[in-house]
Structures are given as C-alpha cells and as structure tokens.
C-alpha cells in the first residue's frame, strides 16, 4: 500500500517530476503525430496504389503481351466459379495523345480495357469524375458528342440519358455530395466536361441530343487533362466530347515495331471522362480506351496468315477479382490461395498451347501476382519511410527517457534519508524499488495521457492548423497537395497506435526510472539515517 501511497504523493509534491511528465508528454504527442500522419499516408498510398489492379494480375512483362488469354479466362471462370468473380484482359502500351485545339501532344500510357468488366474487377468506376454524377453514362464505345438544349423558359435541358442519370444520382446523393456537385459545377448547368462549349453558345439549339460523327470514347487520367491546384482540386480544361487524337506504336509478336516503325496509326477519340486513381504516376500518363479498338490498332487482334493459319489475339495483362470473403485479410489470403491454384492451371494450360504459338516465351514468362506484390516496391518505399521516421522520433524520444532517468536519480539522491526511513519501518528492497518504478509508471501514465490527448487533438486539427499557418504566411505550408497527390494531410488516429504508444510511454518512463529504483533499493538504511 505504501508504494502506491508514496508514489502518488511524490507525484503531487515533487515538482521536479513535472519536468519528467512534460518530457513524456511532448514525446508521446510527437510520436503519435508522426505515426498517425505517416500511418495515414501509408494507408492512403496502399489504398490508392492498387489503382486499377485486380486482386491478381497475370502478365509477362512484355509490351507485345501474351496469347490465349481469353481461352484461359473462359477456363478459369468455368472451372473455378467459387473463386473467380471476374477476369478481364487489359492491354498496356504507349502512345502520343494530341489535343488538337491546343496543339499539345503528350506521351501517354495507353490502357485498353473492357469497361464494364474492368469496373467489376477493380475500383476504376469510383475514380471517374462525371460517372459519379451521371452514373451509367460513361462508355468507351463510339458515340456522338452530347449536346444540351433549352426548354421554353430558356432553362438548360440535358440529353435524356444524362438527365435521367443525374436525377437518379440526386435521389441517392447526400446533401454534402450535392453541394460538392454544385461546387464542381457538374449539375444540369453546363459544368466542365459534359458539353462541348460551342453548343452551349449556339443560341438556336433548343433540343438536347447528340452531334457530330460517332467516335470511340477515351477516358483520360486527370493529371493529363486537368491542372491540379494548390488546394488539391482540379481545374478541368476539356469537356466531354472533346476530340483527341491518339497515335499508337504497334508491335509484332516478336516485339519489333510493326511495319518497321512506319505504321503508327492515329485514331480519333472523344473525351468521355477523366479518371483519378490518386496515384500521380498513373493519373499523369494514363488514357483508357476500348479493349477491342486498342487491340486492333496495336495489331494485337486475331489475324490470319497467308497460309490460312491463325495468329491468336494478345493481351498484356489479365486482371482477376476473387470472390470477396468476410474480411479484407481473408480475401487477401483467399487471393493468395487462388493464385497457387491458378499457377498450376496456367502451367498445364501453357504446356497445352505452347505448340500453337510462334513465340512460346510469351506464354512461359507469364506470372501471376497479387496487386500488393506488383506494387511492393512502391508500398515498401513508403513503409520504410514510415519505419525510418518512427525510429528517428523514437531515438529523439530516448532523450525523454534519459531526462526521466536524470530527474529520478536526483529525486533518489534527495530522498536517500526518506528511503532509509521507509526501510527502517520494514519496507523491503523490492518494495522501495517498486515505489520508484511505480513513480516512473505514474509519470508515464500522466505524461502519456496528456501527450495522447494533445497529439490526437493536433492530428485531428492538423489541416486546420496548416490552413491557419498558410494564411499567416504561405511559405509555412508544409503539405503540398500538388506533390503528395492527397489534398489533405492524413488525420486518422488509430486506437491501436494510441494503445501501443501509451504502453511504450509507460515502459519508457519505467525504464528511465530503473537505475534510480535500483539505487534506491540498494540504500543501506543505517547509512541513510546516520546523519541529519
């Protein structure tokens, strides 16, 4: 009982201990802030680095892709319906994107997708800007330019498909989403991206509908077609229906440029939407077109030789979504199990098809990986950064441990006589030691709680604090949305982090008090009491 009693009494009466509490307080707050921000950053990076990847990805790393993808997709869908929810081929290649009205040409990564299948395999649909407000209207198939009309009162009327889609979205949208839509100017009023400006300016156009010749649709990475503002939002320059020219570089199955490099087809597209995965490296270079159109343009479709034999079509990836399990972890494990089964099936499948292709290495090099494995380099870099920063701050926090140690050593020096008194009335050596360990723990508890409260409050308001600092002086903006691709600083405090930091704060304080506790335990009462 005396241990608790004296520990609490020393905590209240020894003002020098307040310095130890302050040290633990500041270090706890600092570590919580760092871990929360870095952890939040890592989570966002992880979530977004998945980008447009399925649970499993089959690819051989070659631009010319691999054949028999469709046969394999059909086989696994048929044989493993309990495991495979969807599988879709993807073509990834490179090209030049030209914005004719501005004469700007950019190098891009061209991704050929089956739109609906891709939306089932990954979160592609979630990153589409206009699709969010006009659900079901995005399509990569050839279509004319959507044009608005005016009703009798001069109000703007959308083409029926868009009007219906917008009204459908309005029914499900929250007030915040509606306000956001208005702010983004995507409502019935001609917001950016829906209408071709020329038609808006046409005074006599009263009927909404479709104009021009049908062209295939192209979804463009948001950082290709819009400018990211310092506040993290985008200023969009091009509307839906804007004409784009895409020049491709077809490859032969052997990997050489088709036609010796002289046949680079240029295809006209209409801008359909922009896509934001949140990963700048993807959004700043990617354009998404219809799989069949891109495949044919890249000469990867099925062809027949002069002798009548068939050259099978090729795709560069097959993206696979496994059946979802109860939790994300279980789904992850399920995907790993499924990968093993797929790997076995692919081996058999490949062996059966090797003699049907002139380039067997395109088949033998195919690997099946989870999306985490594919993005491991990127995720690991951020994970290591988080670990490094956490270690650095923990090293800095050792200062607090040393400070606690020094303060406790001083307290024991000052309290030598008191320790002798307590021992003279029967306190054991371990009892005396535990007074100071408990004292250290109490300093850790008080400092830890204060630090966690301050840290959590700071993290919660970290964006407001930054906004305030930026208002005072723009040079004080430490988080640049342009650089990090996230508009706001991550500000989630995880309960597990709070618990772990709290325990570590207590243990660190106890460690700091350990030497002092041992010294106190070794005080010889007769020596301590001998002199006043």
């Amino acid at each position, binding site marked *: *009982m*005396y241990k*608790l*009693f*004296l520990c609490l*009494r*020393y905590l209240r*009466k020894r003002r020098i201990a307040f310095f130890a509490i302050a040290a633990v307080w500041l270090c706890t707050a600092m570590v919580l802030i760092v871990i929360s921000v870095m952890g939040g950053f890592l989570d966002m990076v992880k979530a977004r680095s998945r980008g447009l990847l399925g649970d499993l990805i089959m690819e051989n790393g070659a631009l010319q892709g691999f054949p028999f993808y469709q046969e394999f997709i059909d086989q696994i869908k048929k044989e493993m319906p309990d495991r495979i929810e969807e599988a879709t081929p993807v073509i990834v290649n490179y090209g030049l994107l030209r914005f004719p009205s501005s004469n700007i040409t950019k190098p891009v990564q061209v991704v050929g997708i089956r739109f609906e299948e891709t939306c089932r395999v990954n979160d592609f649909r979630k990153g589409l800007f206009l699709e969010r407000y006009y659900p079901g209207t995005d399509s990569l198939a050839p279509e004319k330019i959507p044009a608005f009309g005016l009703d009798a009162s001069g109000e703007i009327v959308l083409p029926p498909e868009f009007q219906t889609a917008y009204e459908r979205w309005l029914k499900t949208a929250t007030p915040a989403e509606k306000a956001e839509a208005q702010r983004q100017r995507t409502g019935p009023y001609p917001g950016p991206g829906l209408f071709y400006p020329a038609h808006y300016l046409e005074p006599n156009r009263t009927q909404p509908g479709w104009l021009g010749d049908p062209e295939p649709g192209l979804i463009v990475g948001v950082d290709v077609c819009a400018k990211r503002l310092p506040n993290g939002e985008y200023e969009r320059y091009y509307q839906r229906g804007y004409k784009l020219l895409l020049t491709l570089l077809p490859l032969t199955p052997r990997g050489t440029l088709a036609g010796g490099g002289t046949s680079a087809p240029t295809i006209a597209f209409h801008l359909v939407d922009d896509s934001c995965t949140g990963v700048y490296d993807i959004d700043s270079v990617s354009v998404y077109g219809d799989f069949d159109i891109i495949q044919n343009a890249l000469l990867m479709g099925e062809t027949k030789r002069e002798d009548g034999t068939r050259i099978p079509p090729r795709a560069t990836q097959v993206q696979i979504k496994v059946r979802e399990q109860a939790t994300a972890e279980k789904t992850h494990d399920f995907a790993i199990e499924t990968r093993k089964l797929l790997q076995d099936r692919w081996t058999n499948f490949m062996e059966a098809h090797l003699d049907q292709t002139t380039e067997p290495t395109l088949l033998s090099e195919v690997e099946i990986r989870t999306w985490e494995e594919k993005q491991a380099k990127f995720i690991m870099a951020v994970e290591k950064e988080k670990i490094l920063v956490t270690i650095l701050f923990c090293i800095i926090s050792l200062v607090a441990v040393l400070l606690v140690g020094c303060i406790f050593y001083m307290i024991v020096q000052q309290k030598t*006589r*008191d320790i*002798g*008194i*307590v*021992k*003279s*009335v*029967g*306190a*054991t*050596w371990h*009892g005396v030691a535990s007074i100071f360990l408990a004292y250290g723990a109490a300093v850790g508890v008080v400092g830890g709680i204060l630090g966690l409260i301050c840290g959590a409050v700071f993290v919660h308001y970290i964006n407001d604090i930054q906004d305030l600092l930026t208002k005072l002086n723009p040079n004080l903006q430490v988080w640049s949305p342009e650089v990090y691709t996230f508009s706001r600083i991550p500000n989630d405090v995880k309960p597990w982090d709070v618990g772990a930091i709290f325990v570590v704060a207590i243990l660190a304080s106890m460690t700091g008090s350990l030497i002092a506790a041992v010294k106190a335990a070794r005080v010889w*009462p*007769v020596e301590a*009491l001998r002199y*006043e």
Partner: protein
Amino acid sequence: MSERDALIRVQSVQKTYLLGRYRLHVLRGCSVTVGDGEFLAIMGASGSGKSTLLHIMGALDTPDKGKVLFEDHDVFAGSAAARDRLRNQTFGFVFQFYHLLPELNVLENVLLPAMVGSSIAGWFSRKADVTAYARKVIEQVGLKDRIRHRPNELSGGERQRVAIGRALINRPRVLLADEPTGNLDTATGREILSLLTRLNEEGQTIVMVTHDAQVAAAAHRVVNLVDGQIRTRNAAGTRD
C-alpha cells in the same frame, strides 16, 4: 532478570566498519539481554557503538559475528524479508533526528509502518481500524490538534512525539530509541522521557541509547558500552 525471561539476547556481537584503509572495530563481542517489559538504557561516549548496537538489535544493521536472539529465534538466521517483517511488526524505532517524511502530515507519518505492512486490499479492509488507532496514538503522544500538520510546521519535541507515535502504530514488542532527547532542549527532552516512561509503565519494552546519565536515569537498568563491550550497572546500581 533471568535468561529465561529475556526477550532479546545479544550474544558476542562484533561489528567492524571499514574507513578507507582502516578497520574500525565498533563492537568487540558485545552481549546484553533485554527483558520483556523492561526499560533498558545503553550509555556510552560518542562513537562508542551504542547506536550500532541498537541498529543490530533492531535488525536494521547486521553483525559481523555473534547472534541476536528475539524470543530465542536468531534474527539473522532468517531471510532479509523476515528481518524486514521484524522491523515492521516487532520493533519500533525512534531516532535522534526524528526522521519523518516531509511530504506526509502527522497522521500519515504515523500510519506509514501500518501501510508498509499491508497490501492494497488488506489496507482498505483495515484502514478504518488502523486510522482510529493512529488517532488514539497521536492523542496519547499529545498531538491531537496537530494531526494534519506537516513536520516543518512542528517543533522538535512535537516531531519526536510523531516519531514515537509512528514507532507505536504496529504495537511493537520493543521500542528502540536512539538518543530520543539528544536534539531537544532540556524541558522538551524531559517531556519525551516522561512519555517513554509512561509507555513503559503501560507494558512497552524500551531500549534507549543515550550519552546523558540524567536521561538514562529514567530507565530500569543502564548498561555502559565501553571499547565495544558492555560493562554494566543498572540505574539502581545492581549488576547486570
């Protein structure tokens, strides 16, 4: 007093301190007995080893050689924990410089040994009884009105009364007082002595160390410590 009635028997105790390169032989085969209910005074010149003898008698220090028997049990044959228990339950110490904890008030200082002897659960189950007894002890030592005062708000005599109260809280078998009046003026010292005398009359065994013959005169029996050995006469002049 016969050997059979002895509560404490100190047998041929030797104690040496190492002072740098020199050995200081403080106790050289010291023997003394303390009877149950006795008030024994140990006299000696400054540095004669009387405090060391008292500390060894109360298991606060250890002898190099010899034995201390309490009720025929060798105090130093047991574990350190057993000696800690003995200091807590059986002996009560009163020091020349009071040795109170400055952060605690009178009541808390008095309660300290009771807390040391209790677990948290045990303390809360007996707290009311012990506190009531502590109040009684404080009243007994004449500090009823000073119960919430801290040591720095008390006079020397009052502090020594608190120390006596603390020594009595666990109802010890023996009260070991080391120069209890040594730091007090004559009048206050006399008050403390009369308090000790009263306690002894109520049955408390007391061993008191002093260099002052007038103080020692309050005891039933006086022993002299000379050259690390007991050479004794009691207050009434009878040999030990």
